[in-house]
């Protein structure tokens, strides 16, 4: 499955240090079904209910520093992807969360200016160049493009599929 190289979507803004317990509360750790997991994405944040009620396929999460800090639970990345979110932009990511995103085939971008993007903005992200266009604010930013290595893993559907195929 090749992904389209341009992703356009509505922005859901979150703050700094959103930990994995906010992304996916610990009480749902026993769940194993990905569709069920998706029903709890971002549930522990202060706008969890609003997000879950209104999130649509193709929406984009934009967050501040250290997104995904805390525990190493992979459910967090799986739930976000399952909720239909096409990619996550943050000022920075916690290491293990970033690994889990790549390993479970969810696209991430680090963008220094992430905080200039507002909730509800419509943005367009070029996967190959890392160009982020804010169509609402008429601004353009440059994020690090997704590396070739990440692309291969994500295209394969995650780390284990990739390793099986190589």
């Amino acid at each position, binding site marked *: 499955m090749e992904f389209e190289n341009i992703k356009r979507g509505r922005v859901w803004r979150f703050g700094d240090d959103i930990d994995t317990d906010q992304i996916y509360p610990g009480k749902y750790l026993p769940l194993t079904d990905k569709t069920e997991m998706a029903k709890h994405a971002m549930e522990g944040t202060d706008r969890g209910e609003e997000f879950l009620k209104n999130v649509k396929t193709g929406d984009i999460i934009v967050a501040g520093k*250290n997104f995904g*800090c805390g525990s*190493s639970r*992979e459910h967090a990345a799986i739930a976000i992807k399952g909720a239909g979110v096409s990619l996550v932009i943050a000022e920075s990511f916690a*290491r293990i969360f970033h*690994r889990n995103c790549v390993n479970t085939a969810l696209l991430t971008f680090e963008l220094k200016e992430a905080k200039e993007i507002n909730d509800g903005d419509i943005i367009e992200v070029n996967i190959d160049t890392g160009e982020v266009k804010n169509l609402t604010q008429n601004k353009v930013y440059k994020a690090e493009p997704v590396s070739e*290595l990440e692309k291969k893993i994500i295209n394969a559907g995650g780390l*284990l599929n990739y390793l*099986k195929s190589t």
Partner: protein
Amino acid sequence: MTIIEKIFTRACGKPVRPDMYVWAGLDLVAMRDFGGPNVVQEFKDNFGDAPVFDNRKVAITFDLHIPPRDEKVARNQQILRMFAKEKGIRLFDVNTGVGQHILMENGLVRPWDIVIGTDSHMNLLGAIGAAGFGMGTTDIAGALYKGKLWFKVPHTIKIVINGILKYPVTAKDVILYILKNLTTSGALNRAIEFTGEAVKMMNLSERITLTSMVTEMSGDIGFIEPDETVFEFLRSHKVENIEPISADEDAEYEKVYEFDITSLRPQIACPHSPDNVVDVSEVAGRKIDQVFIGSCTNGRFEDLKIAARILEGKKVNDNVRLIIVPSTMEVAQMAEEAGLYKIFLKSGAVVVNPGCSLCTTGHPGILAPGEVMVSTSNRNFIGKLGKGAEVYLASPATAAASAVRGVITSPMEFWS
């Protein structure tokens, strides 16, 4: 190049720079009684009966709930024993101790190695010049199958520690002081190299204390250039062909911090964050219920010796439980031979078998609501050791002094 850049350059066979994504071969893949059973499940779901990539490069350590506290844990350990037998993997059972320490003591980790494991403090292996990384289930399962994983090469921060450490001020006080300055996100996704005269004079136990708490700064790995102190430990633990590793003269560091510890006083991290650090004197007198001396950060022989020096000939306060846990069986034997057990037992301490012990709930010694503990471990997050409890992080010296007085106490009062 910095140490981490050199390690990845060798492991992937081409020069690397920070922020590059690379595949690197692994020298050791470890899992433990926590996380390990999930790895086995994921491995079987994805790779069926396939062998592991190289059974000499895989190890299983039991350190969290040892011996098992309930049937579920017993079952998890059974799953790992069966997997180990099936794949011919070396397993260190309930009579061994803290995983990373066990790997070092068994000669399974050398400078230059890349080691991964299901433990957030794998990075303490930087104390001997190896790159240790804590990883999740999918990473470890994939690594068991292929023996390689992808990495994003981190930038390196250099921390220079000048001055001379004067007991009872210890490496723990130094790292807490650094945490206070850098905060819990101060080394996010970064490698750290600790250097300076104070570091060069540290023994391996102190170096482990320093590097283990890079996790609490959100760092990837903390290195100390291995020298004779480390080589001697490795040689005495059957490691041959030791290759030194050091950063190049012209290595590029993202940031350099300098600290002078000459006048440093004992430090303590107050609830509920490892960077909420003050001088012990600022919270001295606070009543406590329990003291824990041990963990992957402060469970080595030298740590226990410092505690024993304060506890010798004294009694633990009537209102306090003191729990002491050597990090490994080797440490326990050294402590026994040096007469430390006698001192601990006479003082009224509970001495537990080697392992992780009071790092998380689910272990004997958990606190009741409202109780306060001084711990030599590395994390004091809210609820981690019992709902409504408060944990202060300090050195073995501060912990022992506090156990005797029944209140938070500076070890300066006990030192002559």
